[in-house]
């Protein structure tokens, strides 16, 4: 069997990739994708833990995360569209209606 460590490292690296993308990219859609990558990194580690501990709880949580992430993506995209209609841009640096 592949050692648990490998999965933990994979999930950790993937999580960092997502986090890095979220912090450095300025396009809303890409930022949304980065968050999705972070969620999926968590899913990998949960499934791995769940498999190695022979306990189903982790996989149940993964189901929940998948379903909720879909709802989250839908809401995020809807907000992006609403914003685009008002502002004609999806670059975060141009969101400066409020200052102080």
């Amino acid at each position, binding site marked *: 069997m592949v*050692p648990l460590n490998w999965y933990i490292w994979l999930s950790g690296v993937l999580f960092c990739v997502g986090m890095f993308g979220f912090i450095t990219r300025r396009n809303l859609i890409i930022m949304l994708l980065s968050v999705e990558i972070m969620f999926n990194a968590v899913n990998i580690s949960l499934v791995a833990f769940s498999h190695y501990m022979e306990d189903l709880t982790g996989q149940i949580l993964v189901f929940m995360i998948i*379903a909720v992430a879909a709802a989250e993506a*839908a809401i995020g995209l809807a907000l992006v569209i609403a914003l685009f209609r008002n502002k004609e841009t999806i670059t975060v640096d141009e969101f400066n209606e409020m200052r102080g």
Partner: protein
Amino acid sequence: MPGTYVPTDYLPVLVFLIIALGFGLGALLFGFLLRPRRPYAEKLSPYESGMLPEGEPRQKFTVRYYIIAILFVVFDVEAVFMYPWAVAFNKIGLYAFVEMMLFILILAVGYIYAWRKDAFVWD
């Protein structure tokens, strides 16, 4: 760091990967070396099933597709909860059945709401 474990179980996958890669690249390379090269304008234009290509390849899609897509994403993923339920149906019986019906009822309320708010109107 990962230890000294060597994933021998996955060796066939690696072999398969190498063969697939080799075959794909090999076929392309083979064709590239053998085929004659006589380009002219019609040959270089993108193939659109015999039609003349018109318009920009990167068109903007109407936003309506996107509303349908969102609704699809939301309602589609819910099916994930029905598989475990269906598989274990014999063991968990009536209680779970009622529970699943409630779940579907709640989804249906959302669906009716979207429908009555004209989310599916196509014009």
